[in-house]
């Protein structure tokens, strides 16, 4: 792999940009790999990358039924934060956030991590207590967050309306080193690094069946033929239940649509990420100037990557209350992704009833921020059989009642 650098740009400028390589190789699948990862989104590619980087396992294929990063990795609002209440969540999300800090250097690919700061607004007395509790929990967990006053919120985000018609801003939970990153670049950067280690990225290859012998996985049947493997990682987000059914087990999970939308580009007006969970909307401004907006999920099972219109209406209404200046903004486009939501709104990184199959799913409405940490932890789980970051996220926690109850802590979007 030729390294990207200022020197490389200058060199290529002098020869009409004829010397750039493909970022990742296109190779046909081999008949057998040590590890097959299903799903070439951020989480799948990061899992493969850390298998190679941390454990030297490079005989790996990453199989994708669509195109690389074309699922939820390309459909989210790119928010990165780690201000969670429960210890296991804070551990894996903070690992992830801290990996984002140096990810561009690590991958030699600019993921445009922008630690611009994230504010979660408190707009009810209940939220004040909740976020103050989270701030205290975070200081014990070593996650840098802070409870701030409404005046400080206004200072950080001058376009906000503190005296909204329904819910005034009463304070906020501020994470200064949270922010955003370029979602596609995260997938592309990991893919390039994986390909460089000799891993095969096989796109437009759908898994149609899982092959087992004596309760142990031996490979997968795909639209490009059978591929053998010793270990199988299922990292397919919204389709996790569908793939698990093919392997012969079920998950505590439901798939629903979550939508996002962007406005026309405008001049810079907001250099933090704001989440307003009571009125239910969140917003940041992209480098192009578009306001990037997200809200709540639909309530019913759905695989269509389309959401219901009334959720957009609710989200936009919430944001007009919170930021009156957006009331005349035109929306440019809208899209939906299928998110995998578990009973306690926390992810599953786990062994499964089938020996050799590992599952990484259930990130629900907040998976992008977790990509590096999820990959790091999943790689350790697959290579060593356990990881301190994944022990609490077993799929069997529901039987034992050991929930990681962020649905109560975060209320909604997280």
């Amino acid at each position: 792999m030729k390294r990207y650098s200022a020197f490389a740009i200058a060199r290529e400028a002098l020869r009409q940009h004829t010397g750039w390589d493909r970022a990742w190789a296109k190779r046909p699948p081999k008949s057998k790999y040590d590890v097959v990862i299903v799903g070439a989104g951020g989480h799948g590619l990061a899992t493969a990358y850390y298998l190679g980087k941390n454990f030297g396992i490079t005989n790996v294929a990453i199989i994708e039924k669509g195109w690389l990063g074309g699922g939820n990795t390309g459909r989210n609002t790119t928010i990165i934060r780690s201000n969670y209440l429960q210890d296991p969540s804070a551990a894996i999300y903070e690992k992830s956030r801290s990996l984002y800090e140096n990810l561009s250097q690590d991958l030699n690919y600019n993921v445009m991590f922008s630690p611009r700061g994230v504010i979660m607004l408190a707009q009810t007395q209940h939220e004040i207590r909740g976020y103050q509790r989270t701030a205290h929990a975070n200081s014990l967990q070593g996650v840098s967050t802070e409870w701030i006053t409404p005046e400080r919120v206004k200072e950080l985000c001058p376009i906000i309306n503190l005296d909204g018609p329904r819910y005034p801003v009463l304070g906020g939970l501020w994470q200064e080193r949270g922010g955003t990153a370029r979602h596609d670049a995260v997938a592309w950067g990991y893919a390039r690094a994986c390909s460089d280690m000799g891993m095969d990225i096989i796109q437009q290859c759908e898994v149609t069946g899982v092959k087992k012998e004596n309760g142990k996985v031996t490979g997968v049947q795909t639209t490009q033929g059978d591929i053998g493997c010793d270990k199988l990682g299922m990292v397919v987000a919204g389709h996790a239940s569908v793939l698990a059914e093919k392997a012969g087990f079920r998950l505590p999970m439901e798939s629903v649509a979550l939508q996002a939308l962007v406005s026309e580009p405008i001049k810079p007006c907001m250099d933090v990420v704001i989440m307003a969970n009571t009125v239910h909307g969140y917003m940041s401004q992209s480098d192009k100037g578009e306001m990037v907006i997200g809200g709540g999920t639909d309530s019913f099972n759905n695989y269509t990557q389309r959401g219901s219109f009334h959720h957009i209406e609710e989200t936009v209404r919430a944001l007009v209350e919170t930021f009156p200046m957006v009331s005349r903004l035109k929306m440019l486009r809208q899209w939906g992704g299928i998110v995998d939501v578990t009973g306690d709104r926390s992810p599953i990184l786990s062994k499964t009833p089938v020996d050799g199959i590992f599952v990484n799913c259930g990130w629900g409405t907040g998976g992008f921020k977790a990509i590096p940490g999820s990959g790091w932890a999943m790689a350790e789980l697959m290579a060593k059989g356990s990881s301190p970051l994944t022990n609490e996220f077993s799929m069997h926690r529901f039987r034992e009642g050991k929930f990681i109850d962020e649905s109560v802590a975060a209320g909604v979007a997280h």
Partner: protein
Amino acid sequence: MLTLHCPYCGVDADETDLHAGGEAHLTRFGPGASDDDFEGYLFTRKNPKGVHFERWRHAYGCGKWFLAARCTATLEVFATYSAQTVAPPADVRAAITAKRPDWSWGDLS
């Protein structure tokens, strides 16, 4: 917008008038059940891509619970029917089989 016909009051209700209640036809395990059965009842879900049976409540209408047979891959609605059934009735089965001849009934057969 998803529109479901309420089998009780006869109104074609928009999803904003309805409350989604999750998977239908679950066997309700209680005291004395095995851990597997109880976990399955409370948490494990089919979450199918395709034909799905669901509970819905006509929350901003007659207030009654009813069941719907729907396709999660296309949002097509096959039928809605009474909640006082332990399995999809014959006419609902016929409506689904007519439109999805390859569909296997699995646990519900």
